[in-house]
């Protein structure tokens, strides 16, 4: 392996900024040990960047909305339309980039709501392990986990009006229990660590124990899972929009584009293939990046702070 050799100088009392800098460098080193993680990170960065600046970079920004150009309908991939055009003559490439916006927005919002709820409930159940509260929280969690996730989301999305917001509500409802389970396991084991006992014996309050002692020790698996979950939320979102329960036309959504394309298979194959590839690459990117984050958070032998 080609690792540059650095001789480590004596580090006396470091200033804060230097410590942060060396922390970043070290995290990057651990993250980048696996080259695939770096590939994942690059994919993710490209996706996020292009979603944010979509109107500036896509060749036909106006194709993302209500637009019809029958003259160019069903054009195969060419220099002008990289991924071809759909049955309305809209540029598939532009629509995919715009679809990333909805997908990422959904993933961010779903995780922003589901993670705090799941983590909080997991912490509480873990702290009150063995009590009635623990039983109630964890059994409710189990009930949610026992329903096949896609089915639950479909049911909720179908009951509510089909749009992006309701799709997000549906996905959020099925997402938090995973975090509750994850944190519950971490919290119950951390709760019995000696440093928690020591704080209790000093007389620290519950809030301190839960949020200052237990929570920080649960963070690294939470972050790892979040990175992986972005991909999965996008997939679930695509599945919902595939069956028409997500973002409504004409706003582009990856699942909906795949679904539209199937009607024109195999003649207009690019209508299906490119959005599908976009979904696959996105999930792959977030998964590879998630692995890198896991490596970064892991403690190794001869690891120094």
């Amino acid at each position, binding site marked *: 392996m080609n690792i540059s*050799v*650095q*001789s*480590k*100088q004596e580090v006396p009392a470091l200033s804060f900024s230097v410590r942060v800098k060396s922390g970043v460098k070290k995290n990057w080193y651990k993250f980048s040990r696996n080259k695939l993680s770096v590939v994942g990170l690059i994919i993710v960065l490209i996706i996020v960047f292009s979603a944010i600046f979509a109107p500036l970079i896509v060749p036909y920004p106006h194709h993302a909305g209500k637009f019809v150009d029958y003259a160019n309908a069903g054009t195969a991939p060419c220099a002008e339309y990289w991924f071809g055009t759909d049955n309305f003559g809209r540029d598939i490439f532009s629509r995919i980039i715009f679809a990333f916006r909805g997908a990422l927005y959904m993933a961010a919002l779903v995780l922003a709501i589901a993670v705090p709820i799941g983590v909080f409930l997991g912490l509480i159940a873990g702290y009150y392990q063995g009590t009635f509260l623990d039983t109630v929280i964890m059994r409710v969690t189990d009930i949610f986990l026992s329903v096949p996730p896609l089915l639950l989301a479909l049911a909720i999305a179908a009951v509510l009006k089909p749009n992006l917001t309701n799709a997000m509500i549906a996905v959020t409802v099925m997402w938090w229990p995973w975090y509750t389970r994850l944190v519950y396991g971490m919290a119950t084991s951390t709760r019995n660590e000696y440093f928690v006992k020591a704080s209790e014996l000093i007389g620290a309050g519950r809030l301190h124990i839960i949020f200052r002692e237990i929570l920080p020790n649960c963070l690294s698996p939470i972050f790892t899972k979040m990175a992986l979950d972005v991909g999965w939320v996008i997939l679930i979102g695509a599945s919902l929009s595939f069956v028409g329960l997500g973002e409504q036309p004409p706003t582009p959504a990856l699942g909906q584009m795949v679904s539209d394309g199937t009607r024109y298979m195999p003649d207009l194959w690019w209508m299906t293939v490119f959005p599908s590839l976009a979904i696959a690459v996105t999930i792959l990117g977030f998964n590879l990046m998630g692995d890198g984050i896991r490596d970064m958070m892991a403690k190794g032998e*001869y*690891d120094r702070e």
Partner: protein
Amino acid sequence: MIVNKNDSILNIKDLHVHYRTYDGFAKVLDGVNLWVGKGEKVGLVGEAGCGKTTTMRTVLRILPENAVVPKGEIFYHGEDILKMKPQKLNKVRTQGISMIFQEPAAALNPVFTIGTQMFDVIRYSDSGKGRSKEEIKELAVKAIGEVYIPDPERILNSYPGQLSGGMKQRICIAMAIVTERELLIADEPGTSLDVTILDQVHRLLRGLVEKKGMSLIMITHSLGVAREMTDRIYVMYAGNIVETAETKELFKNPLHPYTLGLLESVPRLTGGGVAEGIYGRIPDYFSPPKGCRFHPRCRLSEEKCREEKPLLKDVGDGHQVACFKVQGVI
């Protein structure tokens, strides 16, 4: 027992081992010289993190992936283990040298019976080749009997989880001696066990080694254990052998400041209070001190110690010490 160095079965020469990490190379072993004679019981004594285990892992070439050996040779019967081809190395591992690990619970696979694991050891060794199942079992039963565990048949059918810590350690010893080996490396066997059980394990190990005429390298952090178990002792500090002598001589006439400090730190059964301990702590392997690695903690250190690395020198009767101050006086 006095053994001539020329009869050594294992001879480690100027061994360096480094670990590659983000912070650069952790230069753990810094020129270790160590030899073991036939039928000799040798102790390797040092505190946590001094490189005892790294040394022995290098002998069997079971170092972690990020370890590199920039320099050094390990002669086993005149052949360098570090340069051996996998087949040859395998032969050393299955016939020549066996190792007992620190944690008996971790050395046994919890999902297989003791029998399954012992039979494998025999089957893959030279003495087990071409033997029938019954013969292999017989060997295993005999080995378990030798470590004084009653009812070997039942033990062979039980899982590690069903045995106590002391029993597991005995099984590990049984596995190490079940086939004929020349050299046994015991890496702090059963440090986690209680004194009364540890005492039994040590007595057993010593008895078996003597009975079978094996050589033993006993890795330990306890001078007391080394004193009771070995003929000759190597004292190790921060990847260097700092002193070696026959056990009796070492306790009668310890010379290196580190050995002295270590010996002083041991609380005595005779009372007399607690010593001060040794100032400071084991150095940072990423930027080890120049010269003698012990100099920042040494009361006697002077200019030369800070600049130049002292090498092991004989001060009489095979008593070697790596310290300028001591060498200068004698």
